[in-house]
């Protein structure tokens, strides 16, 4: 859900840029750079990368001599930059690999004549070039001079299977010389081959996603029926990369979760699943600092994550015909050079766009590398500079917060974490602050508590012995006996003696419609207080975004649906309760919430994540208590037995669902009718003109 919303937001952003042009004060690049903070909110940034030019066939070969076919890239599908910043492009359509330096100077062409459709390539530290060619169904290995060294064909191992296709699309080689390959139609994962080309096994495959229909089928279908269904297969990874430590990265098109995986030797994913990832990733690369870059093959967005998978920047966009530098048509590959430039290969355009990190991005990278090494204190200076440029950068707030935390300045750390919305660190800082507070104030608390106890004992003694304060007590007792007050205070009785409470409620006039309505208003007040006051560690909503009227509807609609539905069901089922009683009973059933909602919200503010269990249990306890009271209400008011009560409640819920359905249909229908009338009116008006 959240991810869809984010997607919608980014698309909106791209569209707005088109409409508004440069009204906002950004530079003249055709895209904006932004990110999501730790609460999932989009925030704007300075440009992190600026396009500084393109490299294509014409820049490499010039205009002299070469004919059209040779001097342009034809649907290139992959690109690699080696340790010395040489760019290798798999010029797929032309069946060759073109090598240049990172400033667009041609070096050589490799594999002309040998290669058919090279679609993936990799260069090892000792400059051996591995090319995955699915046309020739082989992996070709070239030495540093571009001479063919070996050819790896389909493994003969029985484990690989005789009928399994071997169509290499992408290839990488790890430190030990093992070859990892993505092959067309190999859903088991990456094919791992020894340096000699022997099959070692599959690695890092995806799991088939959860499917509700399938799960139901599994429960209800017979084995015979199951066997007739086509097997749901996991998606095959689409691209891969390897970093300096030998960790393998895979990306998969078409999945929303784990679209990027960082796999350790055991094939375990080391990245969290919180960050926003595109589901159309064309390629992935990792720079020397461990930052992960991906490019979206359809929407043209470029993403940068740090090595823990925190999203740093999103920028870029699709070239929909206006052909502005920096926009991409069909990005196929992404790579970085040692000086931090970003190269994006565009398949349809047949060129490489070069992006340069800005001073801002340089600062962020500097801070990030210190931060990820745990040098929080040293990272404060660069983070502070980042904040000077962009004060809403949430990662910077977290970074500075950690520095403060490290130095024991918990109050400052707390403020930073609260700002950045980092729940874990916020909770840690709060824990420290609370500890300090308790240490400091423990004697005071004990003294005050003792004083209170003593005062209470003395007062009680004085009252009993001398009638001290009798008037106050008398007043209080008289007040409590007032009809309305007594009715309101019936809430307490509901808590302690629910069964008697309901009896009195129905028969004894211990509650009235007025008192119930007051309680309803009170309950809504408690709800608002809860929304507003609950610590953000435990509440999922931002108080700023709460609309009172929506909240009111959210409370009233289900409540009245329940009351009406229960009344209708009970009338048919010989229930004794009157409508008025059900109304009162339902609201009085929510007494636990009215009583404890406020204290719980306040309590939440004193807790850290470590004590979250306290909050959760308390909250659930209140809910269960309310449910129990509702149950008792139905039973007592209508004079039902257990079984009837269950039936009644089940029917009430069905009734509520039917009401929802009817409302939905009515709403939809009226919309349709309106739409029809509008179209008719428009047609008549326009044709008559």
């Amino acid at each position: 859900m959240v991810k869809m919303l984010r997607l919608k937001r980014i698309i909106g952003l791209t569209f707005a840029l088109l409409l508004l042009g440069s009204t906002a004060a950004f530079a003249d690049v055709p895209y904006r750079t932004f990110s999501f903070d730790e609460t999932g909110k989009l925030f704007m940034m300075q440009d992190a990368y600026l396009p500084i030019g393109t490299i294509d066939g014409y820049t490499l070969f010039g205009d002299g001599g070469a004919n059209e076919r040779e001097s342009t890239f034809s649907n290139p599908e992959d690109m690699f930059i080696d340790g010395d910043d040489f760019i290798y492009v798999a010029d797929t359509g032309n069946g060759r690999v073109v090598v240049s330096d990172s400033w667009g100077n041609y070096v050589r062409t490799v594999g002309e004549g040998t290669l058919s459709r090279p679609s993936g390539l990799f260069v090892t530290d000792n400059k051996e070039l591995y090319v995955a060619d699915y046309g020739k169904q082989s992996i070709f290995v070239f030495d540093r001079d571009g001479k063919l060294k070996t050819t790896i064909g389909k493994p003969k191992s029985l484990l690989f299977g005789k009928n399994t296709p071997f169509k290499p699309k992408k290839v990488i080689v790890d430190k030990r010389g093992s070859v990892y390959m993505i092959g067309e139609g190999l859903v088991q994962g990456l094919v791992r081959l020894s340096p000699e080309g022997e099959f070692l096994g599959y690695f890092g495959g995806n799991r088939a996603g959860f499917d509700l229909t399938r799960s139901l089928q599994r429960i209800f279908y017979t084995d015979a029926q199951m066997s007739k269904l086509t097997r749901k297969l996991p998606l095959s990874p689409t691209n891969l990369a390897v970093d300096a430590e030998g960790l393998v990265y895979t990306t998969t098109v078409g999945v929303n979760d784990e679209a990027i995986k960082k796999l350790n030797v055991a094939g375990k994913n080391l990245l969290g699943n919180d960050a926003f990832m595109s589901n159309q990733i064309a390629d992935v690369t990792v720079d020397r600092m461990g930052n992960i870059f991906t490019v979206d093959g359809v929407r043209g967005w470029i993403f940068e994550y740090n090595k823990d998978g925190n999203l740093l920047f999103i920028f870029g966009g699709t070239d929909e015909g206006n052909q502005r530098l920096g926009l991409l048509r069909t990005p196929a590959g992404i790579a970085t050079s040692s000086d931090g430039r970003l190269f994006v290969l565009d398949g349809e355009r047949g060129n490489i766009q070069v992006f340069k990190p800005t001073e801002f991005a340089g600062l962020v990278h500097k801070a990030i590398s210190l931060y990820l090494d745990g040098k929080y204190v040293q990272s404060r200076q660069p983070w502070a500079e980042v904040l000077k440029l962009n004060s809403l950068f949430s990662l910077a707030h977290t970074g500075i917060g950690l520095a403060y935390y490290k130095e024991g300045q918990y109050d400052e750390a707390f403020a930073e974490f609260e700002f950045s919305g980092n729940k874990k660190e916020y909770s840690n800082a709060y824990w420290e602050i609370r500890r300090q507070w308790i240490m400091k104030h423990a004697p005071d608390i004990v003294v005050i508590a003792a004083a209170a106890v003593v005062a209470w004992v003395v007062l009680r003694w004085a009252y009993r012995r001398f009638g001290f304060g009798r008037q106050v007590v008398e007043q209080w007792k008289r007040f409590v006996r007032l009809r309305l007050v007594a009715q309101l205070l019936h809430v307490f009785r509901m808590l302690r003696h629910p069964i008697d409470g309901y009896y009195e409620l129905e028969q004894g006039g211990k509650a009235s419609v007025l008192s119930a309505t007051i309680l309803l208003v009170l309950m809504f007040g408690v709800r608002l207080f809860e929304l507003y006051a609950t610590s953000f560690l435990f509440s999922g909503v931002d108080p700023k975004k709460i609309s009172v009227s929506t909240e009111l509807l959210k409370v009233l609609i289900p409540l009245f649906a329940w009351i009406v539905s229960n009344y209708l069901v009970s009338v048919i089922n010989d229930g004794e309760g009157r409508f008025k009683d059900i109304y009162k009973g339902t609201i009085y059933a929510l007494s636990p919430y009215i009583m404890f909602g406020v204290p719980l919200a306040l309590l939440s503010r004193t807790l850290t994540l470590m004590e979250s269990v306290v909050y959760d249990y308390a909250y659930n306890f209140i809910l269960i208590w309310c449910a129990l009271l509702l149950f008792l209400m139905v039973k007592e008011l209508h004079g039902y037995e257990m079984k009837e009560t269950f039936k009644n409640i089940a029917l009430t819920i069905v009734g509520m669902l039917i009401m929802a359905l009817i409302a939905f249909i009515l709403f939809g229908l009226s919309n349709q009718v309106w739409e029809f009338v509008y179209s008719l009116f428009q047609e008549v008006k326009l044709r008559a003109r």
Partner: protein
Amino acid sequence: MPAKSKPVVLIALTAALGISLFQFAYGDNEKVLPAEPETAMLDEQEGTFPYRSNNYTMPEAAAGTLPVRPVPGGERPVAESERLAVYVSKSTLELTIVDKKSGYVWASTPSEKDVAEGQLNEEWKTAVVSPLLLQYYDENSMLVNGNYYTLGGKVEAAEPITGGTRFKLAFDQLQAGLAVELKLDGDSLVVTIPQQSIWEKGTAKLATLTPYPFLGSVHKADIPGYLFIPDRSGALIRFSKAHSRFDEPYVGKIYGFDYATDNMERYVGETAVPVFGIVHGVQKNGMMGIVENGKFNAEITAYPSGLSTNFYWIASKFYVRYGYFQPTSKNLGGFNTFQQEPIAEDRSLRYTFLSGEDADYVGMAKTYRGYLARHSGFARKTKPLPEMPLQIEMYGAETEPGMFGRSTVAMTSFDQARDIVDRLAKQGVKQLQVVYRGWNKGGLHATKPADFPVESKLGGERKLQQLNEYLTGQGVPLYLYDDFTHAFENTDLISLRTEAVRGINNEVVKWGFFGWAADDYFYDVLTHYINPGKAREIAEDHADRFREIGIGRMALDMTGRTLFSDYNADHPYTRDQSAAEYGKLAEGVKGRLGGLALYAPNDYMWRYADTIFHIPMGSSQYMYATDTVPFLQIVLHGAVPYFAPMSNTNSSPREDMLRMVEFGAYPSFAITAEPYWKLKNTPSTDLLNTQYDELEQTVTRRYAAMNEALKQVQDATIEARTVLDYGVVSVKYSNGVEVVVNYTSRSYDYGGIQVKAKDFAVIGGATS
């Protein structure tokens, strides 16, 4: 402890914690201020690569001798002036223009050899030699391309008029016709298609007209040079033999997108001037087109070679009718159709011929400056200030969602604004231009247009008055920010049903104003456009109110740069009527107040602007464009002071500063007194940081650096701009000052003067 007192203690405890929590949240949020000086990131490795991109201008290679086309024999000039001789073929209307000063010959069609060998399809083969390209709607409302030849065009009559000849054309296949008038005006040739000469008898209806598309066109790179396109600050498309393939030509709708008329999905660029040009041999021969009549409904189109033909060509496409989609239901049902009545206006194009030193984009800009002075009374001279001016954009109040409706965040009260001005003065920054945004009740984006009363959280009208008096006493002009283009649904100033602009399909034009970064809360805020007549009413009313409280200046956003039609039958406006109305609006405001600043205005508004803010500082960087040039800046420098967009969002502060120095644009900053994070939940989240305390150092340091170069040239015009090497530019001003800017990571030796890496040098003038 008795059991009953436990909750009491607990509640007290929580309350205390709650209070301390509140303290953390709203207490001081002080940050460490880094003391490191602004350093530039140098990359020795990069060489010239980044500066070859189309974000910069390339150095010029000396052009050799250019071949001169022969004047077709047997033709007599139909018109002749001291400078030009114009030959026209009576049957094909082919034009040949001889620039008598240089002897260079310009032709409206490519050479026969190039056409024959061009591997053109049938349509283009005739199009390249046509004097006129046409588009029309057939009986099925389909847009069809045609030209003089494919539509059976012929010259029916040629009659002399003063200064030239009128040719009456008929197109058999369309059963339509029009007249083309060719007239000489000094060093210019004016081509006119009068509206009353157009006749249509068939079912086909004219859509667009493109006169003399291939005038001055170049085959591949046979002649060195470039096309000039008026994209933002200006851009060039250099002729080259080999380049990547492009999908679409450059299209720049003059004065930008028309929200009431144009298709939202089509990007038509930002074009503030109706000018285009071709250079044959840099500083040898140039031709510049100025669209005159009909410019409000015209596009400039430029084709690089390789796209449809092997020619580089540029032309102006006039609209006679706009096509549009007429929805009939809310769910995308509807049909395509077009305007029944043609747009009633003459259409004319002025070709001015340049030679020698003037034959480049600098010469074109200078020529256009002279043209504006002669034709639209834009003859102005900046009054120099003792130091360079700096724009401070104060953000007053902004709106924020809350549990009980919206609330107002006060960012800079009027007293705080005064304090900031004082602090800047103490740092030596005295020449300020202060714009105050978000002065209205509820804050900047609470509603649009801004409306009285003045927000009380900022101090109210009285404090604003005091601020104004104080600043005036200090010699600092104070502008109040306004915009008479957008109207939000909650405005009381206009009736959205009757006074909001209606589109060509009669629907009220509206779209989500905060479609992007802002919260869900602002996602649904729709903006409408205000009918220009109504806009003028509101503007004059506002100006009166300003005057009542003594404010003497208005900073007007959007209205100077957004141009649209209104198809509301009760008070329709065409684009040129809208432009005229905005002119009167500006005049009205100026008459009442005395001072008016405009944000990135189109050129028809320049004459009303005392100051220009947010001038475009680059081009769109289209792939086919090879260079970015400061055309607008060359036209405007010395006439109207102009400021770059706010520097808060600069990602490479150093390079952006160099760009400002090179383009002669003064810096600008958005400033608030309160910390920027207070805007976190408001729609103004794209400013990144605005707090004065954090920016003071940046502002003053930037000011000091730039002042050195720009204070001396405030009233001088830009006379020459030379690219010395990739990434090194010299700009020469009329008062003899030369500013050399070096973007590269290596220092540059300019005749003995070392221009440091990523730095600039000022030669001549008072300080050196």
